């Protein structure tokens, strides 16, 4: 294999693996948006929140990871329940922008609460995923990226199956279509909301562990989680497979751009290039690549 080609594939695969992680966080946004019409700004904070609890429990009290991770998942379900009770239920039927602003409030409240307990210093989070390089032919891959991408892929597929094939998934899609009609068939919106926020919390735990393991648990994790935003713009806020494919495109696009365009334009291109791809796309298709088509019968 020519050296250029194997280098290209190396960059491409690395980008796709990072993209899987973006897809995963984007799915957290999509699930909540579909079920409640709320754009959950706090999703990124939930990633940091979960990672801080896992790393904090492990380092300060020596809680093993096999216990700390399930405990944090339970904690996230509790957080989902509290958010539904304290924030969403009283605000139901308010304008979407008010709901959105309330999630900004949740964003800072979550981070503030986690910092109050665990302090704001950064911690490492090593759950034992190997960091060794692996050679496939001439190509060099990071084993960590492969494992992380694999975990994200499995989770993404599980979530997609959950939405399409299970009873609760069907209910979530029904609620996404028409809140009032869903209530008319006996669906309790509050139950559905606790379920989706819990799933989003679970996604945040996984993303927090994987990213925290790579970058360390520190406030900058929030920025990485916001990489899900261009994914959402590109894939559409309402589409599960859109989030998956857009995540791959953004991941691959930004690492290719960094390597091939970076030297020409200047470094650090991966920080903003994703947004440029997404915005260019939006001009042509405002609802995103796979955003729910508005069904209109004439």
């Amino acid at each position, binding site marked *: 294999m020519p050296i250029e080609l194997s280098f290209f594939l190396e960059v491409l695969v690395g980008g796709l693996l990072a993209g899987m992680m973006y897809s995963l966080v984007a799915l957290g946004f999509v699930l909540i948006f579909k079920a409640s019409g709320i754009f959950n700004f706090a999703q990124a904070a939930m990633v940091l929140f979960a990672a801080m609890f896992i790393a904090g429990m492990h380092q300060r009290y020596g809680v093993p990871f096999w216990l700390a991770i399930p405990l944090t998942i339970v904690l996230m379900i509790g957080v989902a329940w509290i958010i539904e009770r304290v924030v969403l239920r009283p605000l139901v039927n308010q304008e979407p922008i008010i709901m959105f602003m309330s999630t900004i409030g949740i964003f800072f409240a979550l981070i503030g609460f986690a910092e109050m307990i665990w302090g704001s210093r950064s911690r490492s989070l090593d759950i034992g995923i190997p960091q060794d390089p692996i050679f496939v032919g001439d190509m060099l891959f990071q084993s960590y990226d492969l494992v992380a991408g694999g975990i994200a892929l499995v989770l993404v597929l599980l979530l997609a199956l959950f939405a399409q094939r299970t*009873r609760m998934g069907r209910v979530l899609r029904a609620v996404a279509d028409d809140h*009032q*009609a869903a209530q008319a*068939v*006996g*669906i309790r919106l509050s139950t559905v909301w606790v379920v989706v926020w819990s799933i989003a919390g679970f996604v945040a735990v996984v993303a927090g562990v994987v990213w925290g393991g790579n970058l360390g648990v520190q406030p900058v994790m929030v920025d990485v989680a916001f990489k899900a935003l261009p994914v959402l713009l590109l894939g559409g806020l309402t589409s599960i497979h859109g989030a998956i494919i857009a995540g791959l495109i953004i991941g691959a696009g930004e690492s290719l751009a960094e390597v091939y365009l970076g030297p020409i334009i200047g470094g650090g291109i991966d920080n903003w290039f994703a947004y440029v791809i997404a915005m260019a796309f939006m001009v042509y298709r405002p609802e995103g690549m796979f955003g729910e088509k508005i069904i209109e*019968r004439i």
Partner: protein
Amino acid sequence: MAEQTGEAAPLLDMQNVEVVYNHVVLVLKGVSLHVREGDIVALLGGNGAGKSTTLKCISGLLTGERGEITRGSLTYDGEDISHMPAPARVERGLSHVMEGRRVFEHLSVEENLMVGSYSRKISGAEALSEIERVYEYFPRLKERRKSTAGYTSGGEQQMLALGRALMAKPRMILLDEPSMGLAPQLVEEIFHIVSRLRKDEKVTFLVAEQNTNVALKHADFGYILENGRVVLYGTGTDLKENADVKEFYLGVGSGEARKSFRNVKHYRRRKRWLA
């Protein structure tokens, strides 16, 4: 005018109910009506008369629209339901088929029916056999079972909305404007199925309709709403024969130039007396 008589207490009893939207707009100004088990009751009146609000008030879907009952009582099966959340009413057998069908557009026909059984907590296999029963009433839905509901025709969506409500095994269905936007033949077909459901499944119906003609043909009893008040009520036959109903709702003129309802003195007097 015949009083509705019945030894047993009515299944649904609404007394002097007032509904206010957004804390300001008074939409129902003291509506009283009752529905006996096994009857088809028509709720008639023009646009904005308060028909849909009355149904939403009974099913509990007002809260989602910032409406609330400010006065009066609402009893279903002997229980005060005026402050019960909508899903709890569905569990008690009170289902609402909303205006405009409101099917889950991105779900298939069959998935819509599956979701309809949500309140009963039955297994997937049981739900599937229930769906077969619904298909017996609506064979057209079976042909389109895999289609995305949003792309089916208006008539099919109305059937789907009714079928979805049936999946909850209701004792009473609140059916809002089933004729809207449908060809006369389809409207007749839907009302025919309503009559069959009443007979075979013992479902009680409260049907809001602008199409007075069709509704009175199938209804045992009818109420006419105007401006948030009941202005006339009686058995289906009585209402069909009533001169005012003929004049204003059935469009049967008395020969000479149509009267404007403004000029009909006795009508206005009666209206005031009834309201």
